[in-house]
């Protein structure tokens, strides 16, 4: 299994508070991704990174920011959490070689009250 961890695995927070989710990899892969998964919507890409300090928006980036200061860590921040951001968040990594094959972390379940 690819070495990907996510922390925390579960979080409950209140509307308006900032939240940071962490993705950590031990594979030295270049690409990292944050997705959210909601019933009826499948997986939706929030942000991705194609190298240290190189990030870009996905299809549902509003209300989220990311940072990647080291190859192994990709942080997702909700500046001011809203109830619509209650979701399961997945991190994924790819070395970009095998036609974008991605490996996924175990997920973080976030509840915003």
């Amino acid at each position, binding site marked *: 299994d690819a070495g*990907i961890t996510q922390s925390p695995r579960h979080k409950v927070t209140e509307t308006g508070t900032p939240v940071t989710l962490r993705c950590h990899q031990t594979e030295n892969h270049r690409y990292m991704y944050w997705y959210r998964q909601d019933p009826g919507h*499948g997986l939706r890409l929030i942000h991705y990174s194609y190298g240290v300090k190189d990030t870009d928006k996905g299809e549902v980036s509003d209300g989220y920011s990311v940072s990647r200061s080291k190859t192994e860590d990709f942080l997702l921040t909700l500046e001011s959490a809203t109830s619509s951001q209650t979701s399961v968040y997945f991190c*994924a990594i790819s070395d970009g070689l095998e036609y*974008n*094959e*991605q490996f*996924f972390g175990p*997920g973080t379940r976030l509840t915003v009250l």
Partner: protein
Amino acid sequence: AQSVTQPDIHITVSEGASLELRCNYSYGATPYLFWYVQSPGQGLQLLLKYFSGDTLVQGIKGFEAEFKRSQSSFNLRKPSVHWSDAAEYFCAVPELDTQGGKLIFGQGTELSVKP
């Protein structure tokens, strides 16, 4: 633009019965195709992938998929389903001509298994 369609949102099969999950794609070149499985409460795990060559691809857990260019399909099959196969299944293709190594996922098919 590339796209992936999984026509079935939810499928129920009896344990021991055969299974086929449908995936249709739209792709501007020779497609590269993936099937992932997500067990309840887990992340996605790669089941199998097609890049080129033999159109029948074997994967983990007894799954296989057949690439049919004429039908733009990459259907997932298993001859005898086990209760542990209950999960959500996603088909995916790479997003071409963009940076970032992105995948385009279908909406997923949820599989329920009856005893």
